[in-house]
């Protein structure tokens, strides 16, 4: 069947009162953006509180749906058959043909849901429901009406044109990106942080990202892997500014001066400090990490408390209550899993102690950090100064 339009469903935005148009406009512009990935002549319009994607001529249906499924804020995508108003007889024929093509077995229960947005149409919604229902029952003897739980909810909208649709392809939900400020994601090459970025972005938050690398301990390929992950997140989150920070000197300095079982915690405290520093410069409103309670030594409640302590910005941890399998499930859904499991060492594991502290004592950690006083400010400044900016565009 040829669908010439898609009706875009969104729910949460509809309740945002006077800000509603801001959200809708953000959604429309994001839809336009993702449709650039697909070959075809698309027009996105906002009309009487609904968003439509119309397409002229040839296009790839699956690709279009896949692109729309990357737009946060969309809860449903309805492929629509659009016809002209040429009287009830013609409408009845169109409805019959639609059902024949969309549901070849023709043995489902159904309900007609007519909506008369154009009030000068000669029949009202109730009349349309009854008449069309009658036509369908007459024509297909195995179809039955079920007004409470129909298998097919057939919507017929009378507007300037007539829209016929019945199935809803689920969208990702959430809120349009950019409607809720910007946050700085601490992105590693692992499974968790890309998922964390996705989750926060889903709530309408635009993302910047920071990646710490430690050449020669980590390779160019490990960095490329992070770039690839950022590209995948950008399909959902839009353009991402990825800041690549060289962490080697700080890491080696900590290794030299501090007890090795506290290395990871102290290192993470410095990563948070650097991330926050960049976040402030780039007007982010919070930090995002992929931590989940108890997953590894540096993610116990005590460890989280000690990494949190260095930040003045809120730190968002959307995966905090997730089990590993749940995180993996999302990463598979958003297609970051395969990249995440490529075996390149990241800077968190290179000097990891056999038995890192799991219940760090903040006082002790702070005392040991004093050992770094001599050079750490200089190294910190150098790390910021030498950072590399990679702009990850979402349409590449």
């Amino acid at each position, binding site marked *: 069947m040829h669908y010439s339009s898609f009706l875009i469903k969104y729910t949460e935005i509809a309740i945002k009162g006077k800000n509603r148009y801001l959200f809708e406009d953000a959604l429309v512009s994001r839809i336009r953006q993702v449709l650039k990935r697909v070959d075809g002549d698309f027009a996105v319009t906002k009309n009487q509180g609904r968003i439509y994607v119309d397409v002229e001529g040839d296009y790839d249906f699956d690709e279009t749906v896949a692109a729309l499924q990357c737009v946060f804020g969309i809860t449903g995508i309805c492929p629509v058959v659009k016809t002209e108003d040429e009287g009830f007889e013609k409408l009845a024929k169109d409805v019959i043909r639609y059902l024949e093509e969309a549901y070849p077995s023709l043995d489902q229960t159904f309900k007609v849901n007519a909506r008369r947005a154009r009030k000068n149409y000669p029949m009202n919604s109730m009349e349309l429901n009854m008449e069309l229902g009658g036509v369908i029952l007459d024509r297909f003897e195995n179809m039955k009406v079920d007004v409470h739980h129909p298998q097919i909810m057939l919507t017929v909208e009378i507007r300037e044109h007539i829209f016929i649709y019945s199935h809803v392809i689920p969208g990702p939900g959430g809120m349009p990106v950019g409607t809720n400020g910007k946050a700085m994601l601490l992105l590693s090459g692992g499974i968790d942080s890309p998922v964390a970025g996705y989750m926060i972005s889903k709530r309408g938050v635009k993302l910047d990202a920071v990646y710490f690398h430690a050449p*020669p301990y980590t*390779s160019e390929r490990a960095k490329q892997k992070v770039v690839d992950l950022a590209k995948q997140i950008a399909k959902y989150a839009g353009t991402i500014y990825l800041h690549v920070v060289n962490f080697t000197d700080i890491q080696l300095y900590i290794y030299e001066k501090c007890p090795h079982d506290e290395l990871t915690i102290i290192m993470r405290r410095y990563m948070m400090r650097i991330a926050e520093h960049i976040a402030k410069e780039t007007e982010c409103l919070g930090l995002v990490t992929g931590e989940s309670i108890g997953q590894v030594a540096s993610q116990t409640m005590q460890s989280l408390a000690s990494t949190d302590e260095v930040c003045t910005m809120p730190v968002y941890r959307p995966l905090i209550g997730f089990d590993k399998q749940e995180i993996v499930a999302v990463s598979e859904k958003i297609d970051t899993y395969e990249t995440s499991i490529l075996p390149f060492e990241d800077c968190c594991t290179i000097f990891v102690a056999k038995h890192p502290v799991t219940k760090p004592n903040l006082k002790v950690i702070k005392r040991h950090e004093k050992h770094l006083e001599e050079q750490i400010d200089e190294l910190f400044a150098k790390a910021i100064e030498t950072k590399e900016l990679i702009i990850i565009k979402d349409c590449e």
Partner: protein
Amino acid sequence: MQAYLDNSATTRPFDDVRELMRTIEDKTYGNPSSMHAMGVLAENHVKEASETLAGILKVKEKEICFTSGGTESDNLALTGCARANSRAGKHLITTRIEHPAVLQTMKHLEEEGFEVTYLDVDGNGVLHPETLEKALRSDTILVSVMHVNNEIGSVQPIEELARLTKAYAPSILFHTDAVQSFGKFRILPKRMGIDLLSVSGHKIHGPKGIGFLYVDEHVKITPILYGGGQQKGLRSGTENVAAIAGMAKAAELEYEDLQSKTENLYALKEDFIRKLLTLEAVTVNGLGEGSGLPERVRASAPHIVSASFDKVRSEVLLHALEEQGVYVSAGSACASNKPAVSETLKAIGVKKDLLDSTIRFSFSTDTTKEELDHAFESLSRILPMLRKYTRH
């Protein structure tokens, strides 16, 4: 300064090779199977290349079969011969230190019902003729032994191995993976008793994606690719004309003044190893037998040096060298969550601690003393630094 010391991974194509290939792609882009003049011109390039390569090996032109590279040559030789000769027997012999193109093909043939014996080598990575002799059986149909090992540069006594195989039963086929030795050693299959020989183009300053298999005219072999029946049906698919010509050109250049080039490489290698041995906690792997260093260096290939650096992870050392413009290979590609330890290094008995600390330096005829000096200086600077910070 740059020092490209990863020539066993791939080499820089010679300028003449690139030029020749461009000319062919520009002007003689016909399909060698086409009946018109454009086809004939293209076919002539292929013929000429066969002549050149056959001339180097002193074999017949028709015994050269072009492939996509060393891997395909090995696959074709082993699978093609095993299948074609399975009525005579189902036993195959190889060594534990072969390239994966051989080892993985053997594994696959085991699934097809063949039995494979994997022979041990000595601490220098050399297969002793007696070891092979003991493994030969009445149902053995094929022996495959590489000429030069790609990781440590050990050289197998191919001629002797082939001779004793044929002495046991003339019908047993002898295959040699010569990917690392072609262009470095004079190889004469007919005289040495080699029935099949795999060669790759890009290891000798030719293009990637091209190679050939020498197949003695008496060998019974079936194709592994089916199609238009090119190359007498042994390897269907339109010939990669420019790459074939480029490879032949590269071989021709590589074999010019072979002896003086080889001697020069050995001199570089000896000097480099001598310096390496002055460093702390360094082991050079696969150094041959002999009384003095010059002799020991010359027992293995002229272009490969494998060294283990105690308490340093090879991946880190590799990247640290890279920062100095020195490009090498890690003896065993190893990452924290996916250890893939080298079979060759294990087979020659490299200590467990050193498996993940091994680096391969590989030279080409382009390699200069300055490059090696730069590599050595970088090493001597980097090693103490890396050893200061180690994992526990």
